[in-house]
């Protein structure tokens, strides 16, 4: 008797997986796509050099997607991020590089130039947010206007030409690597520091998952079957350790990777643990109820657009540093990849729904596809078609499973 009761109370593994199909499906899709390209690129995909490349190529998408998630969760959209990042790249150019077509020469150092650029991006974002919040102009329109304005300003500032090269300290944002502080411990060719950081990060993730699990259990709310919990964490650990091994076999940890990682961690914290994050979700879920609960929705809207502006600026700097020049075509179309990453990652157009983990995975699905198709020699034309189809498929499956449950 007691046996049967115990069995009945414990949720079966299958029913839990079914209830959370969205989260698992996303991870499995990324894994499947990686395995697929590993074969079709004849093993190039997972080489240390190429993995590093994927990180570098994808970093600005991931950085901007973090902010875009907040915007989409709040029920808005920002179309201007691509050209805003390009525009900020152009600002960095005129601040640091001698431009024959620009009346003033500043020759600013790397650090002050970065500070000015980030500030400019944040203020521009806040201004757009102010129009959305204060005058209730749909974000689609405000940022469409912004998109045109920033594009024009960018081309005007650069007089339509590439501007470079940047000082080496600036290029290091994208092209630099964290020096191997532990080189003395390891054989040549292996970046010991990368391995140690990878192991520490893995342990931190496992520890925080374990703590969350304990808290749930203390309140009798641990719904995930223990087998799945162990399995999931084992997979996470394996993935992170394997990844740091691959990194260690090339040149170690790129600076961008560290920046990206720190930002992802920060935004996971903001969305899940802070009152600010909670308010953004509540506002996107039901703005009227949020306002009637005393939330200052105007302030929150301005804040998320300011954050988005700051992140766009950072992405623009990373992009410019990677190409070692400010280019008049920089950022074109990036907003589409960023928005697609959010929707592939499970954010809802209606607002109130979306996770940072989903968006990061979504961004990497896009990134791996871009990279893999590039190696396979598929033309940019067909790449677009395939990416569009994947976006549609992801959202279709999302809606399909939602209606089913």
């Amino acid at each position, binding site marked *: 008797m007691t046996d049967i009761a115990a069995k009945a109370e414990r949720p079966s593994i299958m029913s839990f997986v079914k209830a959370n199909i969205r989260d698992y499906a996303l991870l499995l899709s990324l894994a499947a796509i990686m395995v697929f390209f590993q074969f079709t690129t004849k093993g190039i995909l997972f080489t240390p050099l190429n993995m590093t490349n994927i990180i570098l190529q994808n970093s600005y998408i991931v950085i901007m997607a973090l902010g875009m998630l907040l915007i989409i969760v709040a029920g808005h959209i920002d179309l201007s991020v691509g050209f805003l990042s390009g525009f900020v790249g152009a600002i960095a150019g005129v601040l640091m590089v001698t431009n024959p077509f620009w009346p003033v020469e500043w020759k600013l150092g790397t650090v002050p130039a970065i500070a000015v650029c980030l500030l400019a991006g944040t203020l521009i974002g806040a201004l757009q947010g102010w129009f959305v919040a204060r005058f209730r102009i749909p974000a689609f329109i405000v940022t469409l206007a912004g998109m045109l304005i920033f594009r024009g300003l960018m081309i005007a500032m650069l007089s339509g030409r590439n501007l470079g090269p940047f000082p080496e300290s600036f290029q290091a944002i994208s092209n630099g690597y964290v020096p191997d502080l532990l080189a003395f411990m390891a054989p040549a060719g292996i970046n010991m520091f990368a391995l140690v950081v990878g192991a520490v990060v893995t342990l931190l993730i496992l520890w925080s998952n374990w703590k969350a699990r304990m808290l749930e259990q203390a309140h009798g709310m641990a*719904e995930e079957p223990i087998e799945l919990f162990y399995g999931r964490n084992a997979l996470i650990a394996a993935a992170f350790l394997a990844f740091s091994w691959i990194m260690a076999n090339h040149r170690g940890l790129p600076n961008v990777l560290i920046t990206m990682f720190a930002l992802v961690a920060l935004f996971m914290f903001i969305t899940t*643990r*802070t009152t600010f994050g909670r308010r953004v*979700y509540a506002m996107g*879920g*039901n703005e*009227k109820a949020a306002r*009637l609960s005393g939330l*200052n929705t105007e302030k929150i809207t301005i804040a998320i657009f300011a954050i988005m502006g700051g992140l766009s600026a950072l992405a623009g700097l990373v992009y410019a540093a990677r190409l070692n020049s400010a280019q008049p075509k920089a950022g074109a179309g990036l907003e589409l990849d960023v928005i697609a990453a959010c929707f592939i990652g499970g954010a809802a157009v209606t607002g*109130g729904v979306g996770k940072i983990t989903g968006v990061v995975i979504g961004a990497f699905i896009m990134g791996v596809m871009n990279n893999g198709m590039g190696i396979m020699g598929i033309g940019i034309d067909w790449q677009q078609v395939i990416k569009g189809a994947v976006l549609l498929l992801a959202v279709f499956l999302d809606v399909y499973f939602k209606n089913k449950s």
Partner: protein
Amino acid sequence: MGAVRTAMQQAVGPILEMKGITKTFPGVKALTDVNISVMPAEIHAVVGENGAGKSTLMKVLSGVYPHGSYDGTILYEGKERQFRKISDSEDIGIIIIHQELALVPLLSIAENIFLGHETARNGIINWFEAFTRTRELLKKVGLSEHPNTLITNIGTGKQQLVEIAKALNKKVKLLILDEPTSSLNEKDSNALLELLKGFKAQGIASILITHKLNEVMKVADRITVIRDGKTVDTMDVHTGEVNEDRIIKAMVGRDLSERYPPRIPHIGDTLLEVKNWSVHHPQHADRQVIKGVNLTVKAGEVVGIAGLMGAGRTEFAMSLFGKAYGTKISGDVFMRGKPVDVSSIPKAMEAGLAYVTEDRKTYGLVLIDHIKHNVTLANLKGVSERGVVNDVSEIGVATKYRKDLGIRSSSIYQTTVNLSGGNQQKVVLSKWLFSGPDVLILDEPTRGIDVGAKFEIYGIINQLAGEGKAVIVISSEMPELLGISDRIYVMNEGKFVAEMPAKEASQEKIMRAIMKSWGT
């Protein structure tokens, strides 16, 4: 002449008979064995309290609830009818005009009248024909507006007339008007009623659903009273035994069979005082919605605000709660004798107010989120430090309220959209209780929830009063107000028209106060 008379004589039977209509919703019997018959060329009034079942009956008649979803028969022009959708009843001349008008504001009068029945050939609209016919129709309802005028640019009264013109265009034989004068002023109301009389002369029958008994007395030929989903009386105005008192008695004449948890009031000092509160309509700033309302509530007191729909109760409460409604708001608010600033929602909350909305799905809950997040939404500071939410204390708070208020759910992580109405209401209440207010304004706290949950909500209200909080309850259910309040304000047309201790109040007294105040 002779031919007309024979036609009239042939149609001497009722144009409409509804027999033994019973309609049940899951858990609720909305209509029980309702009978009503309407003669040709008759104005038939249907009266009853809010929630008595008038609208449900009309939805059965018009086919919103299709044949088979109710019991009973509908005879129209002598034949049994089985409407499957609204157009089935419209096609044979039964047209219903709802309280919320079904006009498209940014289209013209002509476009609205012909919406869905465009004067078109092969999809190409003949605007000249539409204009001429619109002009004719408008003339019949006494409007001289240009057919090109946008709906948004004419007043509510005229919009109502456009709706009627639209009905005329569909060859109406039985016109049903649901509270047609609730948003009209005296003059427009009278014009509308005269129009109904004119239709009567042309042989069109009308069913008039209304609260306003003076209007009923003015135009109706017969009156059917519905109470608790049953027909309790049908009166013939022309026999002369009908007066407002008899109608009111029939409308509210139930014994207070519902029970309210007992409570011994401990009433303290004055907590909230509102003086000379006036509010204007947010879109039409020249229309005053609340007209100089004065209110006091003492600690430990439950104060009810009675009134009919549209009396301005919700508007009053929301304007008081941080100007959540209205423009050009004036008046003073005092808490424990000291003036307080309630000019924004956070400030009103700071002053100790909480407003529990009548529309919990639109204004109360983040439906896609779970109980825990909804409970703490109005007081995130209470479970966080320096902007970081403390999971443990948040879970503690949600668990406490779930237990204290008896929110029946699988866990605090159940999505609120999946909760029953009563449990959703408890989540909204939890949210506001956790914000720690001194004065709670509960707007229709038991709307759409079952009897058991109502009893629990009353218990919570008693407990709050027992803790020394002041509770203001807005409700359209008069027995409820009489059962739980200490004192009752009666509101009508944006004013408090009467105030009485609940002990001395009765449904008749409240109804009389409302009826007496129309147009004053």
